[in-house]
């Protein structure tokens, strides 16, 4: 029974996470702790992602 109740609970909780993630993303600074220290260099653009590190 408890397991059954956990399914809708988990569904709602994990969907709510997308809203919380959007708020974090829009606030910007809230994300700092998610990847690195504040004041680090700005993210590179995707073009650099596609350049092979070694040919």
């Amino acid at each position, binding site marked *: 029974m*408890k*397991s*059954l*109740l*956990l*399914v*809708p*609970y*988990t*569904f*709602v*909780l*994990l*969907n*709510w*996470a*997308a*809203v*919380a*993630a*959007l708020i*974090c*993303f829009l606030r910007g600074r809230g*994300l700092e702790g*998610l*990847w*690195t*220290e504040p004041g*680090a*260099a*700005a*993210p*590179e*653009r*995707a073009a*650099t*992602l*596609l*350049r*092979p*590190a*070694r*040919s």
Partner: protein
Amino acid sequence: MGVFEAVFWLSFFVVSYVYVGYPLLVAAWSRVGRRPVRRGPWQPTVSLVIAARNEHETIEGKIDNCLRLDYPPEKLELVISLDGPTDGTDRLVVERAAAACGSLRSIRVVRSERHEGKAAALNRAVEAASGEVLVFCDARQRIERGAIRELVADLADPSVGAVTGELLLLDDDEREAADGVGLYWRYEKFLRSMESRIHSTVGATGALYAIRRELFAPIPVRAILDDVIVPMGAVLAGKRTVFEPRARAHDRVCPPEVEFRRKVRTLAGNFQLLALMPELLRPWRNPVCVQFLSHKVGRLLVPHFLVLLLASNLMLREGFYLVFLVGQCAFYLLAGAGALVRNRARTGAVRAARAGLGREPLEPALLKGGHRQP
């Protein structure tokens, strides 16, 4: 049709497509458009890359785990990138690496004095790595002995650029978890498996994935989702990223509240991904654009449409709409009951810990560790 009906049916379509329609679509698509992977007995040199910060409790076990892998030791290299650890992880790594010297082709330790983030740590590790294939894994999860062989067997197919392994979330009985988070993760893996059969998965599991060295490009320093950016880079370069269920890593299933925190991080990473790699949204650039939109972007949209579905349904309370509203309310009541059950379990655990034995409350322990889903 009124405005509320239009909003209701649009919301209903989006939610049901993302959670039901899309899985059915990829299941059917994988039957007619299956692209098998031509596996082979390839044995390239492999660099096993681990980025670690404060992993005092797990890193020794992880190194031992890597030393026991079933892969020719003369072709296997271990690269550990330390990201400004403050808990003595660096000392443990150096001691353990010195003790294991000669067990593998090489064991390299690279270290940053300050904490710069996982992406920067991985970039440093790859600079130091010499293998033809890079295998990324996290410090905590344990890899099965044959996992590397299984990953590189898929890379014998020249159309495959990256391979993701399978993460098994185990419960206290050492069985694959099947309730709450465990069930959700099984659903995720089903989607990955189907997507892989068609072309590529839209990401990998950070616990275990491999990529050809020449396809790796430095990860943007502030990127959150290296395990999506790296494999999607391979897809954009014209290769496939496939799911290999025979390459397995193990982890403990975590409570939904812990999963919630990770999910916030992962989904924030998906928003970031749209800014970093906008070409993923362009069908002429991204061969798995439909999958990316349905699987990744759809998940970002669903919660907003769930709110609209309930709000519009409250304005429509006749016939079918009334039945649907009752169903929605029942679902959310069950979710509320689930929250109460979880809350009771957590409170009980903390009380039990406080009452006896002088132990620390369990909650901090619950909030440590765990996996991350892309």
